[in-house]
């Protein structure tokens, strides 16, 4: 039998003006288990807490109820006070008689009655409380960053600089990501490669950073502080240690028909290739699908020309298993597939391109060596039309409902750069809204309009028609002038919506991190915990969480790093004791609970039990306390009631229900 104390707070007049606090205390003494009840001006004050401590010690209390403000306000305060007095902090329950009672009811009698019922419910619950102890788990002082774009690189650098080992896993043959494909960056027009390359070099040279390129995360198990990850290092067929990066193999490779991923398929590359000149590592890979040696068994030229003897056709995929304390997801984005937007003639004319393709066209290392020209005939365009929001802010299922955020600014950048370099080219931009929040962003856009004479038309484009003369007829509307526009253009650039890298779904499943309807990873709290996943130990960096430009990505990458560092700096983690717990004798081992667990916290073990004399080996659910966050989904999924939630047990909640309904 519990010995309970009930402490009723006046909260000055916040509670006492509407609730007869003395009456609540008096009624509390009638409740089972209650041996002490008192009311006081401010229970949360030093003096109030001292009263609680005194009562706990003097009356040997085994549990307390504080009738006061919301537990969200002072539950922690009273738990600590109880703990200082020698009581287990989980033997404390709060009856919320302020926010849920005194502040919303005017009639004293009515409010007092309700306060008594809330007190009874809390007493009924605490009667069934049991002392809970937070568990401890160890922290592996190593972080994994999935994705080697600017977000991943920045996060890795920040974590490494704090002194922790970091592994970057990058799917493609080189780190660098989308930023490496950009020509210039807004709003300062720096050369993208110029600011990115030093970061790439720094990462590869950092003694605490280990980069796995051409590699993918295969399997994740474990939990915050103690993840175990299998990384598949895909066979490169080039020995990383031997290769000198001379590039002869690529020159001599007879198969040069593969579309270059780096140049968005606008030109071709060899079957053995490094994606771009500044690639890190500067070690090529053999694309087996296009390699003659792999397809026919004949060729082998690269091996012959390689003086370092680095070519290894026999190389196999390798699985590396590593332990991590924290995982940062930085998987970035891609542009959406435009097959549902046939009206823009993207698939019909090579002169209709996406903005990302335009980046490559304008880049000196790109397919046109930086010359602005039509990809169909190589002629210099005179009239360029930009179409905004292609697939963004879309109300039907062809595109995305969200704003891709970066398009307004990069289009202003492209328009400005074109007008600067080719003053005779007319640039027209069709837009729904121009969105330029951000430091120096609106100034930048205004320069494009005012200084560079870019023609902005508020209105949407209904259709782009490829004409027999090779030109493109753009049919649009000017909403401000309320007129239809027909414009002949040499090139059309589509500000294509961005979407999370399609691989993120697979990764989210492995990490039991949640993703939203648009495949962006969900943050633990939209405002207050924007770089943490709801799954402990998983952090979010860059566009995988939502559309961002480079400065925002870098800022978030740093923030994710700080959160990861905060975790890695700990030697042990205290775990929330209000976790699910399975009763071995009732468990069916049916896996229903594991199927609804968002954290992968439930596993199964074959275990011998003694069920009232029957000894047998049974398949039983085991909850990992470090992973379990205490949501309770499993407890309802479990038909036998074997799974229960400590701190919010079935019987506790039922006791509250009964107390309220009695």
């Amino acid at each position: 039998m519990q010995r309970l104390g009930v402490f009723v707070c006046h909260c000055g007049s916040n509670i006492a003006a509407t609730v007869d606090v003395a009456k609540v205390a008096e009624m509390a003494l009638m409740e089972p288990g209650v041996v002490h009840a008192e009311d006081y001006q401010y229970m949360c004050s030093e003096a109030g807490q001292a009263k609680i401590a005194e009562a706990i010690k003097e009356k040997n209390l085994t549990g307390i109820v504080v009738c006061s403000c919301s537990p969200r306000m002072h539950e922690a305060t009273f738990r600590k006070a109880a703990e200082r007095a020698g009581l287990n902090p989980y033997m404390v329950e709060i009856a919320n008689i302020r926010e849920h009672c005194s502040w919303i009811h005017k009639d004293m009698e009515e409010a007092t009655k309700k306060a008594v019922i809330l007190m009874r419910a809390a007493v009924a619950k605490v009667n069934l409380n049991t002392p809970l102890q937070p568990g401890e788990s160890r922290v592996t002082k190593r972080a994994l960053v999935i994705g080697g774009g600017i977000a991943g690189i920045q996060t890795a650098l920040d974590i490494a600089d704090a002194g922790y080992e970091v592994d970057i896993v990058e799917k493609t043959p080189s780190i660098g990501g989308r930023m490496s494909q950009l020509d210039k960056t807004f709003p300062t027009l720096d050369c993208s490669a110029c600011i990115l390359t030093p970061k790439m070099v720094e990462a590869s040279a950092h003694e605490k950073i280990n980069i796995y390129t051409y590699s993918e995360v295969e399997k994740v198990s474990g939990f915050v502080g103690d993840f175990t990850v299998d990384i598949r290092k895909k066979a490169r067929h080039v020995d990383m240690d031997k290769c000198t990066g001379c590039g002869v193999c690529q020159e001599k490779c007879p198969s040069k028909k593969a579309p270059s991923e780096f140049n968005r398929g606008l030109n071709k590359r060899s079957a053995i290739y490094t994606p771009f000149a500044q690639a890190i590592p500067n070690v090529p890979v053999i694309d087996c699908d296009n390699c003659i040696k792999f397809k026919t068994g004949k060729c082998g030229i690269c091996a012959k020309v390689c003086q370092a003897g680095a070519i290894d056709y026999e190389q196999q995929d390798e699985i590396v298993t590593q332990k991590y304390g924290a995982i940062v997801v930085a998987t970035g984005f891609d542009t959406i597939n435009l097959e549902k937007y046939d009206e823009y003639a993207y698939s019909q004319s090579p002169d209709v391109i996406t903005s990302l393709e335009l980046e490559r066209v304008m880049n000196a290392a790109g397919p046109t060596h930086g010359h602005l020209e039509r990809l169909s005939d190589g002629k210099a365009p005179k009239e360029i039309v930009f179409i905004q929001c292609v697939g963004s802010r879309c109300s039907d299922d062809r595109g995305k409902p969200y704003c891709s955020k970066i398009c307004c600014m990069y289009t202003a950048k492209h328009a400005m750069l074109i007008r600067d370099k080719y003053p005779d080219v007319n640039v027209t931009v069709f837009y729904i809204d121009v969105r330029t929040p951000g430091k120096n962003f609106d100034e930048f856009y205004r320069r494009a309009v005012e200084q560079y004479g870019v023609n902005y038309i508020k209105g949407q484009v209904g259709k782009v028609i490829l004409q027999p003369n090779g030109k493109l007829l753009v049919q649009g509307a000017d909403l401000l002038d309320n007129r239809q526009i027909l414009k002949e253009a040499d090139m059309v650039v589509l500000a294509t919506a961005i979407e999370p890298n399609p691989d993120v779904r697979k990764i989210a499943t492995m990490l039991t991190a949640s993703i939203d309807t648009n495949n962006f990873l969900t943050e633990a709290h939209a405002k207050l915990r924007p770089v943490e996943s709801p799954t402990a130990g998983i952090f979010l960096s860059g566009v995988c969480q939502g559309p961002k430009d480079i400065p925002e990505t870098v800022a978030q990458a740093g923030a994710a790093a700080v959160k990861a560092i905060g975790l890695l700096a700990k030697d042990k983690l205290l775990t929330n004791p209000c976790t699910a717990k399975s009763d071995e004798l009732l468990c069916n081992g049916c896996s229903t609970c594991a199927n609804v667990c968002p954290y992968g916290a439930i596993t199964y073990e074959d275990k011998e039990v003694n069920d009232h004399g029957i000894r047998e080996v049974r398949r039983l659910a085991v909850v990992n306390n470090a992973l379990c966050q205490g949501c309770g989904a499993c407890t309802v999924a479990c038909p036998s009631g074997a799974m229960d939630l400590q701190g919010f047990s079935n019987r506790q909640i039922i006791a509250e229900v009964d107390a309220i309904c009695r």
Partner: protein
Amino acid sequence: MQEIINRAKELLADGTVARVLGWKAGDLPYNPEPAYFENAEALSDFVYNGFCGANLSKYMIEASKLEGKTLVFLKPCDTYSFNQLIKEHRVDREKAYIIGVGCKGKLDIEKIKKAGIKGIESIEGAEISDAAETLKIQTIYGEKEMAYADAMLERCHVCKGKEHQVYDELIGESKETKDAELFAEVERIEAMSPEEKFAFFQNELSKCIRCNACRNACPACNCRKCVFDSTKFDSAQKANVDTFEEKMFHIIRAFHVAGRCTDCGECSRVCPQGIPLHLFNRKFIKDIDELYGEYQAGEDTESKAPLTNFTFDDAEPSIVGKRG
């Protein structure tokens, strides 16, 4: 039937299986019981006829714990239950040798008796090999006849089909028996006013004697200890009062098997008071089909059950009452 027995003898003889789980002839024409047969001699009591309604899949939970394989005979509808038990890790597929047996609809002795036929001495036409459409029933009070279809269990009139979902081999032909709409009864109740609905269920459930036959026969109710027998929810009341307990029990039972119930109909078959318990389960099946897409529990062993699954744009609970 002889073919089945011969095959069972073979499998026992060659050591493929250690025992046979089937039905044993009863002492009345209509009461065969589920039984284990350990040797060829015992199989002389084996029977498979229209009264072998019992779903043996649940017995395989215990059989899975025994040494060696058990040969089990499953009717098409029983195999759904077996699959569901595999999915829930309650039976071991490796411990079962499944012979799918044909089915031409199972008989309900209660229906025969409700037709006023009593003093039954023998029944002709219930054998699986009989092609007869009519049962010839010899009683102390004279010879009676009843159409086979009229004596069939409710579940056979809404049969899911005669395809076995899991088996090692098949023996025997089946005959299609579906002649009623699966959801017709549920729809009839849905169309009632709240007062009529309440009266209907009050009437039916007030017959409940809390014997737990429905639960204990149900292959989905396979908990080692039912929540209504444990102290976990303070729900083990057992009282037979005509106000609430039966409703609580039957609603929660239906809820616990929602998305797992294969609609095998055992609950209604075994209810001593003839309560149409399948109406609860079938309501959930209908709701699941309508709200979350068609789902047949036990069709496979992998798919996510409707209640351990969701989509981002599932219907809101407020849809209840708004639907036609």
